[in-house]
């Protein structure tokens, strides 16, 4: 049994659960420590690795679009839009303006649904089940809107190569506006709860803090970066689809802790409501799709979109046939996790639970044990013991 003090040059394995709703790639983390400071950190993923990129090389573009929407169930529209845009770029085709605007509309609705989901799961992880139940009850409103618009609550496949397949009728626009007003009012209430509830603040304020400097050097993306003051949002920096005509203002906070991330996400929900109203107000006329060649001429293209969790990167290489030669997808959670893991390097062992819990408050791991591999055999520390070790170290 390792008594209190930790021997030098020990490898310290922190497994974090095989499954967890918000983190697409469940897996476990490994930290190497030297005395009290962490010298290296890495992770082992793969529980949800289905071999999508190889699958895409044996499927036609239309089939691959259908598969790409199932990379992640929570932001499936973004992956569908990204793949449609990249194939349209390859084929040198431009979707009509009405289709682009509807893509933005569904993307913002999905951002509201994803942020409300994350606020709920985050609260559930902190044991605040009332907020979980209330935010998921209100989320049903946006699910109904999405269902009315696209026919499905999750994985709505609104995209088709060359446009969209669902239209916004005036009545649909009416229900969307009514729903969005309700959501905005609820989001303002959650903003107030997240900033003032004393018990909740005990679990979020000052937890897993990341400075703007660290965020920039580590290449963190999405709301996690914006919560540390990095004004980086692809909808503004590299506008795609119809975002050039509907400019957004980037929401940032400066504190960079868990509370700031909650605030950024709820404020972004309010911002999305504003964009939806603007898109519905001046929805361009015109058809919904253009003709799309079955075979895409040879070439390569890159598209970067702003998913609810951060930047999604798509790279596709085509070779003139109707199947892609190479499809590369980089999801935002991988980037956030890879970069923030390095945040823990150089920190004290005692800070590790806070940093790892900080990057994504819904780290609900039911396999949270800590294996301390040292020179003479290894010993299993529970996560709690690691936390206790941290507390004693600071007492």
């Amino acid at each position, binding site marked *: 049994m390792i008594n209190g003090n930790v021997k030098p040059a020990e490898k310290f394995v922190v497994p974090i659960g095989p499954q967890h709703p918000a983190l697409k790639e469940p897996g476990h983390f490994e930290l190497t420590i030297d005395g009290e400071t962490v010298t290296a950190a890495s992770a082992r993923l793969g529980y949800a690795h289905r071999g999508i990129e190889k699958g895409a090389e044996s499927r036609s573009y239309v089939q691959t679009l259908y598969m790409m929407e199932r990379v992640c169930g929570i932001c499936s529209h973004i992956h569908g839009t990204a793949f449609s845009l990249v194939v349209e770029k390859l084929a040198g085709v431009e979707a009509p303006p009405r289709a682009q605007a509807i893509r933005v509309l569904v993307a913002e609705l999905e951002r509201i649904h994803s942020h409300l989901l994350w606020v709920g799961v985050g*609260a*559930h*992880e*902190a*044991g*605040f*089940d*009332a*907020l979980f*139940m*209330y935010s998921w*009850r209100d989320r049903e409103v946006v699910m109904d809107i999405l269902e009315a618009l696209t026919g499905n609550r999750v994985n709505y496949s609104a995209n088709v190569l060359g446009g969209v397949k669902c239209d916004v009728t005036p009545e649909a626009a009416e229900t969307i506006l009514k729903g969005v007003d309700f959501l905005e009012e609820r989001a303002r209430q959650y903003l107030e709860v997240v900033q003032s*509830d004393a*018990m*909740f603040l*005990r*679990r979020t304020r000052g937890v897993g803090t990341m400075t703007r400097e660290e965020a920039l050097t580590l290449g963190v993306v999405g709301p996690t970066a914006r919560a540390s003051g990095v004004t980086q949002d692809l909808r503004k920096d590299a506008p795609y689809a119809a975002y050039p005509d509907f400019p957004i203002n980037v929401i940032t906070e400066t504190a960079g802790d868990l509370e700031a991330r909650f605030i950024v996400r709820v404020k972004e929900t309010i911002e999305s409501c504003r964009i939806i109203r603007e898109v519905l107000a001046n929805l361009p006329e015109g058809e919904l799709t253009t003709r799309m060649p079955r075979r895409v001429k040879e070439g390569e293209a890159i598209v970067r979109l702003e998913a609810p969790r951060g930047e999604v990167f798509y790279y596709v290489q085509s070779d003139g046939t109707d199947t892609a030669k190479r499809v590369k997808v980089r999801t935002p959670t991988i980037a956030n996790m890879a970069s923030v893991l390095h945040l823990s390097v150089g920190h004290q062992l005692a800070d590790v639970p806070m940093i790892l819990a900080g990057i994504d408050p819904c780290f*609900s*791991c*039911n*396999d*949270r*044990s800590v294996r301390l591999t040292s020179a003479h055999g290894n010993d*299993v520390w*529970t*996560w*709690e*013991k690691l*936390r*206790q070790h941290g*507390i004693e170290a600071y007492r």
Partner: protein
Amino acid sequence: MNFFADVIQPILALLVFPGGLFVLALGLVYLWVNRKLVARLQNRIGPRWFQPVADVVRLFVKEEIIPEDANPALFVALPIVGLAGVLTASLYVPLFGMAAPFSYPGDLIVTVYLLSLLTLCIGLAGANSTGRFSLVGVTRTLTQMFSYEAPFLLALLSPAIIAQTWQISEIIAYADGRWLMFTHPISFVIAIIALMGKLEMPPFDAPEAETEIVAGAMTEYSGRGLALFKLGHGAELVIGVALVTALFMGGTANPLIWLAQTAVMLLVLSLVQVLMARLRIDQTVGLWWRYGSVLAIVQIVILIVWERIVA
């Protein structure tokens, strides 16, 4: 010796009326009320009235798996001992508006420690089933137990000091209808919060934080053992609430008022449960030692000083 009074009556009291079956049934009803209130406050419909009964019966008929590296005798015995402890505690607490079947000097202390016997059994059970999560659950259960035990006893001490006795019935007689709740406000509040800690209700449910350590000490339990622990938990809820109402709300004579009082107490417990996020274990310990104990001692000092001035 009068056979009936000395043998039959105590057994009846222990097994049927104010003791065993009655407390278990009431425990299940109170568990249901608690779950229903929490669900309604979370805008949900919540379980049907017979849900806890169905849960417990189903657990009884389920296969019980005993992990090999756990000591089987201990694994099976602990739930029984825990439940037995709680049931004997029910003999000293005035339930259902009637005087407690047994009462002797010092039964207040015995009741409190019989109640914490169940928590100890849960702790031992978790340690015995050596899964990773049960070990974490055990450390949290026991650390939490040591943190709320002192303030809970201190809070119950203040009425005892005024009545200068450890006997519950004498304390009630001393109070004779006066609601000590108003004269001892601080210890009443601490008693309720400590009761929530004892029953591991949120915000003190770190020992079985479903998202962090699966089910804490109970992770390895299934079938009969789990059912007995659930029954024990229900009984503990009834006796805890009865104890606090008896001491602070003037031991009442008729059952209706008693049921009303306990219902109000359950509503308060559920409200606090819904409004609070779960506290990390080091925060709960900090909360208890920094605020809980100090406030309880302050209350007692005020009482003693007030006693000196008045007497």
